[in-house]
């Protein structure tokens, strides 16, 4: 039985964070959804907010389709790419977990970029690595200098069945992906290193005794025991990919590298701009993508656990 005092404590401990969460996260999120059906310039008084139905969505999917669809495609490409990086991070963690000589040094090197904010990562890559005139990559490259930041030529192009807007990965976005990988791999590595430390070594020994090779032992014994970490890492990877913003903003949002995050901010906070309805509509599209993925993923995982 829970005593009256305990109950009060329980209510306080659950209630206060829930209250703050709803107040600071859900109410603004839902207000954004509401504003996406309105027109307002954030200068006029609140009573001047006018309902416009789904017009903002019509505008961003048709007139501004040339901006929306490439941005969505970039986000999608980021999701796939960051999962590759996640696999690479997991591999690094697995190798470094085997008490290699100097493992602490390797770990520090791989983890170093994570300590930097993505905005700083963006500045470093822009000026030190990518710069056409003085970047390290162009100094080492023997051929004509490459414009890593500004070259918006597409590496490939797909024509979508709707929207009439070709999408694809531009060269400067591909370069940006490398900069993002630099950071994401180290991040994932540390999460898995922590997870691997928690794996009971006797499990691996048992697998070895039963004649498993390295890959079989990893796939069938170690990987399943990492499940809680896998859930966290998968969610982090998708959310990082969908909310990508700072590194691109640090590069001044070169044409071709737009993602949903940059469209939201340019419509909402550009000086004197204040296209609140349009910005909120972009934000809502992003919100639906994120929340949709999270619900689907968490639901599937908990259902499997129950079985």
């Amino acid at each position, binding site marked *: 039985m829970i005593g009256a005092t305990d109950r009060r404590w329980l209510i306080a401990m659950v209630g206060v964070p829930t209250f703050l969460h709803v107040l600071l996260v859900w109410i603004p999120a839902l207000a954004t959804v509401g504003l996406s059906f309105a027109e307002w310039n954030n200068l006029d008084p609140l009573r001047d907010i006018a309902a416009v139905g789904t017009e903002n969505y019509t505008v961003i999917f048709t*007139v501004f389709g040339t901006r929306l669809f490439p941005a969505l495609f970039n986000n999608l490409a980021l999701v796939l790419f960051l999962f590759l990086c996640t696999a690479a991070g997991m591999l690094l963690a697995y190798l470094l977990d085997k008490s290699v000589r100097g493992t602490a040094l390797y770990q520090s090197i791989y983890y170093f970029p994570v300590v930097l904010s993505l905005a700083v990562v963006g500045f470093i890559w822009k000026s030190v690595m990518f710069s056409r*005139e003085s970047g390290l990559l162009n100094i080492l490259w023997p051929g004509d200098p490459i414009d890593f930041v500004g070259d*918006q030529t597409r590496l490939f192009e797909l024509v979508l069945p709707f929207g009439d807007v070709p999408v694809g990965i531009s060269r400067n976005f591909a370069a940006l992906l490398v900069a993002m990988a630099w950071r994401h791999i180290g991040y994932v590595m540390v999460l898995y290193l922590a997870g691997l430390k928690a794996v009971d070594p006797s499990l691996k020994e048992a697998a070895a005794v039963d004649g498993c090779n390295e890959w079989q032992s990893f796939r069938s014994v170690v990987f399943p025991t990492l499940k809680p970490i896998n859930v966290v890492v998968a969610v982090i990877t998708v959310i990082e990919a969908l909310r990508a913003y700072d590194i691109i903003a640090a590069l001044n949002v070169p044409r071709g590298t737009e993602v949903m995050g940059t469209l939201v901010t340019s419509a909402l906070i550009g000086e*004197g701009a204040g296209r609140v309805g349009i910005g909120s509509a972009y934000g809502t599209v992003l919100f639906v993508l994120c929340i949709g993925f999270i619900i689907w993923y968490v639901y599937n995982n908990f259902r499997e656990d129950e079985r």
Partner: protein
Amino acid sequence: MDGKHSHDPVRGRSARRGFARRALALGTVVALVAACGSDDAGGTITLGSNYSDEVPREALAAAVDSCGLDVEINTVDHNTYQENFNTYVQQPDDVMAWFAGYRMRAFAQRGVVGDISDVWENLDGMSEGFQSASSGLDGNQYFVPLYYYPWAVHYRVSVFEENGYEVPTTWDELLALAAQMEADGITPFAAANDGRWPQMGMFDMINMRVNGYDFHVSLMGGRESWEDDRVKDVFGYWEEILPYYQPDVNGRTWQDAATAIGNGEAGMYLIGTFMVDNFDPEAQADLIADIDFFAFPEINPEHGQDAVEAPIDGFMMAADPENESGAKALLECLGSAQAIDAYLSVTPSVVGANADTDTSVYNARQLKSAELVGNAKYISQFLDRDTDPDFASSVVGVALADFLADPGQIDSILATVESQKQTYEFE
């Protein structure tokens, strides 16, 4: 957010100014404070400022100190200031730093900044041009200019002399000079577009030379179609000089393009006079002295060289300031020759807006800037100051980048601009 306004001379300044200059400024301040200590407006006046780099911050402090009023300056990082201006302007300081043109009028129109026509009645030395650049659509004044800086084609005098180049005054001469430079192994045009604002200057210049200032104003005001043949003409002329551009324009910062002029790799560079800020005022003083500029050449004889792009920076007043009499006294002072002299004594890279400014201390670049603007019949602000800022950056800036990446697509690019323009409301 995107640094697109780093063409203001108040930014892009490094903190490498010498101690001597600061000491000099301090001396000036002390002298001016002593000279004009009258205080007819009671109470503290608050001044919101985006002059966050070291040199402009000191310069503004010197200008304010010269007024002898009790002023509290609240300096905010310039990017943050501009991005949050919509929110800030609703609960602002008594006086706020801002820009002339559409960017001021948009706020005046909505009544979120104060009418200061009575300040203008007492302002001596302001030309009619500056008054109209400070006026809202209702004809009242909402802005006091502090300084301006023109955009022009920069070049190195020594490079022109060594190769026997003449300053071009017509489009044909410009093309001939570019061809000659290329033959001599010099890239004719240094060009940057990082942040997507530098090439707006080229669009504006060609547009005003081909179609005139009035067309520029009505195009920026949303009253002309972007699919109009006159707009296509602009891109037609532009395409003629694109082969003479530095390659990979879109990824280059204005500083890197300025460096190409500095080391003689490139011959000409259309940019604001803040271009010399890229070089060290002490170590590269000779180079800075070697850099001169000329007005963009004539294309259509009907318009000649009658327009120049010269962004004006200055101040607005809150709609409902806590200390209105103080705010107006401060604005009147900031527009006076005395405050502008104090400002320019700290940073001589810009030109004072007030005609009574002491030009005897001007360097050659300031004198020439003043002459260039003084000779112009029309003064535009800049593409992103003459129209809706979001339309400028999200629509036109993107279109210009697309044009530079693939000029052949210009028809579909302009069709996109025109359809996206329909979703904006212009003043």
